[in-house]
């Protein structure tokens, strides 16, 4: 590859820097502000430190109200962790079946699932709430867990990936060796589909973790809240208890860190999955 002229490179670097400033400034503000107390939060310049005591501040967030924040955080992990794991396995099985077994009505099933990708999730959340309250499921862990286990996009991705990455000859060989279909899926299928499965898991994990509308609609018991919902109740009370502003900021930082690590470390998988999904779309 030839090196572009210097002028060109300087221009590129400065544009990228400006963009990076835009995307990182709010995160930087959050990190700085999480070390401040409420008075400094309002009284000092936002982009610089004032009496930083990060550990004390974050400790106060974790212990406030008998450690309710820790509970919310655990709830979020539970909803996103279990939900995304289940969604990945279900999508893998469905995608594999749609890719590898010809049966009547297969394309119809696939099209209905694809339509599910295009349905706006929040348009479904309200009806889902009405349905779940009739079934007695509203305001329980199930209300947020169950919808999280369904990923039409995951099925789509898994089908495309399985079609390309699982050779029929290999399945046939396993059959000749006497392996049952479920064993073939559990051993061969899952292993060959692993890169796609990591992508599906990541997407679904972030999707559930970031979802606000569904838990807002479904839950009224604050002990079941995920982090996001909990934090908005804090801001709701912050007018009366100004210290909650400080806790909201600290809690926001704590809630953002794990996901950011996950995204940075596993970035490679985002791109693989996106390439497979985007290319064939």
């Amino acid at each position, binding site marked *: 590859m030839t090196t572009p002229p210097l002028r060109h490179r300087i221009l590129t670097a400065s544009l990228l820097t400006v963009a990076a400033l835009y995307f990182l400034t709010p995160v930087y503000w959050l990190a700085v502000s999480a070390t401040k107390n409420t008075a400094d939060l309002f009284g000092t310049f*936002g982009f610089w430190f004032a009496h930083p005591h990060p550990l004390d501040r974050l400790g106060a967030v974790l212990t406030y109200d008998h450690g309710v924040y820790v509970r919310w955080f655990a709830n979020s992990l539970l909803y996103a962790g279990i939900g995304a794991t289940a969604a990945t396995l279900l999508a893998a099985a469905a995608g594999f079946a749609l890719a590898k*077994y010809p049966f009547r009505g297969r394309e119809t099933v696939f099209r209905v699932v694809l339509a599910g990708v295009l349905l706006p999730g929040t348009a479904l959340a*309200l009806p889902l709430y009405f349905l779940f309250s009739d079934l007695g499921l509203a305001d329980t862990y199930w209300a947020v867990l169950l919808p999280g286990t369904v990923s039409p996009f995951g099925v789509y991705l898994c089908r495309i990936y399985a079609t390309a990455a699982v050779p029929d000859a290999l399945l046939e060989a396993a059959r000749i060796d006497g392996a049952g279909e479920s064993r073939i899926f559990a051993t061969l299928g899952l292993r060959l589909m692993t890169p796609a499965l990591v992508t599906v898991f990541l997407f679904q994990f972030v999707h559930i973790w970031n979802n606000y509308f569904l838990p807002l609609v479904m839950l009224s018991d604050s002990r079941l809240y995920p982090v996001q919902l909990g934090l908005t109740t804090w801001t709701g009370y912050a007018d009366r208890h100004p210290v909650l502003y400080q806790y909201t900021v600290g809690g926001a930082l704590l809630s953002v860190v794990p*996901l950011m690590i996950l*995204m940075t470390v596993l970035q490679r998988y985002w791109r693989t999955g996106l390439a497979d999904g985007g290319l*064939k779309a």
Partner: protein
Amino acid sequence: MSRTAVTRPRAPRAHARPARPPHGRRPGRTRTRHTRAAAVLLLPFLALFVLCFLAPLGYAVYQSVHRTHRTGPLGLGGHPTETFAGLDNYAQALGDPTFLSGFGRVLLFGAVQIPLMIVLATALALLLESASARGVPFFRTAFFLPYGVPGVIASLLWGFLYVPGISPLVEIAGHLGVQIDFLARDTVLWSLANIVTWQFTGYNMLVLIAQLKAVPPELYEAARIDGANAWHLARHIKIPLIRPALVLTGVFSIIGTLQLFAEPMVLRPLASAIDSGYTPNLHAYSEAFTGDNPHLAAAEAVLLALVACVLSFGFLRLTAGRGTDRG
């Protein structure tokens, strides 16, 4: 991405294309066995798909054409007397100026924000592609990072950066002699647009980069030998080749925009311009919970899904109709 097809005498379907329906060449026993295996693998997903996607949709349609006659005091979704209402709820929703103006607002929002975000994402993807290798991973991660910030947190965060008195941005602007009010009646929609752009540009950029990576490098070499400069390369080779990804990001952005909820919900206490009908979703939510009218809310949810379908399919039609036969 085309893989070498593994050829086998009796199964002519080992290609990476969407498969055609079976031609019935397999012996019957294998087919039964396969159908059973497919059913076992598909059923768990399908059962939950029906419960969480199809059933609520059906239930919403059912609810939207009924109404409750209340005899007692407040009772959410109360059974007492539910009667068929025809399209009354739809007529009521469509006759409500607040609901309609909410729709108008998200459409205006989408018409401005989506093209802006996709242009920005494309520009960043192309810049990262052409930049020298050092620093690229850092920039890519920096741009992508906001995708990991949930909408609620992003809105809280930007909320602090918008409110005068705490926002360092307003403070800096004030020192420079500029008075900005991010939360005023006619600016708050664009402040919301900024939050959404901040969150999703990096994600869309990554989708585009993924597709750019799939372009065979020989193509660039050939173009360069023909004397194409960086701009020609981007305009005539890269952008046409990432069209499918651009369409994909467009469709997902349209669906996302129509559902706009968390951002205005969080900024609502800060901006008086944001009322309970600011977006269609906010309107449906308040009808269901504070207005205690689940039937109207159901009709509004159905309308929202319908508009999302029409717009995203329309967009797919429009983009598929123009030009390429790729994809």
